[in-house]
């Protein structure tokens, strides 16, 4: 049985008085890709933020490689090997493409990802390395955001809305690259509005509805109707 890399145990999270997560649990094995699906406001992004330390859970705990990271700050969690590709890319606008990528490597974790390797997989970034990162197209910015996350050589990479706002051909290219991005035992959690694509890319899925787990398992073990009900709550 594969080693458990991440274990989320009954976490609750809130923004002020608004509760976003109600006792969500999940486990992720090393090398596994999990699709996290759910309607807008279901708590997907909050769950990712809790895992990487940007949101502090009010209850429950998060274990990464057996270590309790529930109260760790985001800048310490990234050193343990978790990286986030955030929704909307969120590149640093005052930094060039290359500076964004170099900053991703600041934690200096050992691993296969170097600037050269990122440029090899996304050649357009090398061509535009001296440009301001946010001056590029949406697809190129997404490549830069992915490259920046990979530069930290993570063991777990969290993709938040990979395809949001991108042209269909760009989405296709990025999803074709996905297996190469997570090769070598890297685990991934994929938050995606495009459910069909997400389920096709992951071995397991977890569906959230209003901050609670409504369905989980292997995509082929559940009918389309079951998943639709879990997604919309109808």
């Amino acid at each position, binding site marked *: 049985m594969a080693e458990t890399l991440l274990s989320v145990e009954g976490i609750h999270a809130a923004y002020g008085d608004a509760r976003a997560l109600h006792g969500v649990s999940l486990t992720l094995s090393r090398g596994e890709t999990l699709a996290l699906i759910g309607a807008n406001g279901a708590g997907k992004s909050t769950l990712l933020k809790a895992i990487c330390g*940007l949101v502090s859970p009010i209850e429950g705990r998060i274990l990464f490689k057996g270590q309790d990271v529930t109260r760790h*700050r985001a*800048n310490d969690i*990234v050193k343990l090997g978790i990286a986030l590709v955030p929704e909307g890319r969120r590149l*640093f*606008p005052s*930094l060039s493409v290359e500076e964004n990528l170099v900053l991703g490597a*600041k934690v200096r974790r050992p691993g296969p990802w170097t600037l050269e390797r990122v440029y090899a997989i996304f050649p357009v970034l090398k061509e535009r390395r001296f440009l301001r990162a946010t001056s590029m197209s949406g697809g190129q910015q997404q490549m830069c955001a992915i490259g*920046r996350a990979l530069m930290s050589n993570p063991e777990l990479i969290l993709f938040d809305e990979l395809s949001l706002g991108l042209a269909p051909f760009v989405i296709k290219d990025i999803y074709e690259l996905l297996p190469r991005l997570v090769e070598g035992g890297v685990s991934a959690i994929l938050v995606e509005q495009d459910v069909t694509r997400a389920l096709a890319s992951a071995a397991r899925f977890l569906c959230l509805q209003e901050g609670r787990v409504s369905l989980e398992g292997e995509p082929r073990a559940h009918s389309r109707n079951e998943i639709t009900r879990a997604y919309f709550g109808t």
Partner: protein
Amino acid sequence: MIWINAVMQGVLVGGLYALFAAGLSLIFGVMRLVNIAHGDFIVAASYLAWTIVHATGLHPLASLILVAPIAAGVGYALQRGVLNHTLGDDILPPLLVTFGLSVIVQNGLLQIFTADTRKLDAGALETGSFEILPGVAIGYLPLLMFVTAIVVIAGLQFLFYATGLGRAFRATSDDREIAMLMGLDNRKVYASAMALSFTVVAVAGVFLAIRSNFDPFMGPGRLIFGFEAVIIGGLGNLWGTLVGGVILGVAQGVGAEINPGWQLLAGHLAFLLVLAVKPRGLFPRML
């Protein structure tokens, strides 16, 4: 020739205003913090220099060897111990806390040093000058202040755009959350920025103490000059800050030439004019 001289002296004094303003600009650029106590910290640095000069006999400029690192240490500790706890979505807490610090610094200086005015004596540097045109003389001290302002701003610019620390400043300024995901501890980044700002404060404080008399309550006046230079130049733009300082200095110089009572008024009017025409300043944020 009188007007050329007035403009020239205004340009040179603009260097001092740029030094007052550079630390403010830097802090605003990195963490969106408006430090109401900035002027008081400049005056506190003047008193620190005065104390060191009287204790050691060092030349006032040489006292910077001690004043600058002490100021940087104080700035780092202040940010880590106090100001980091005030930063968040609400801009009011840092304003209130730095206002409180301003009151504390002024009264602390009054308690320790009394209300007597003091000054640092830099010898011939203060009075020496050379003539560039008949009737237009440039003093060594104002020239040194202006050159120092250029060097300080060029140094800060280099640090921001050519070093890892500068990259960390810019990234944290752009997006604090994502910068943390790059492994940057925003608390340390902010403290480093404040240490840097206080180093510039130390330089400004020493020049202030050499150029004029100072007392515990002149900080708010320096803050206003600094604010005006920052806002004229454009918030968060360091070279803009130098231009803002020069515009302020020239306006004051020309105003004083028209009528000595109009010196400060002319500076404020120039500030209002820029604010009315370009509310974001002449060169908006580049940091």
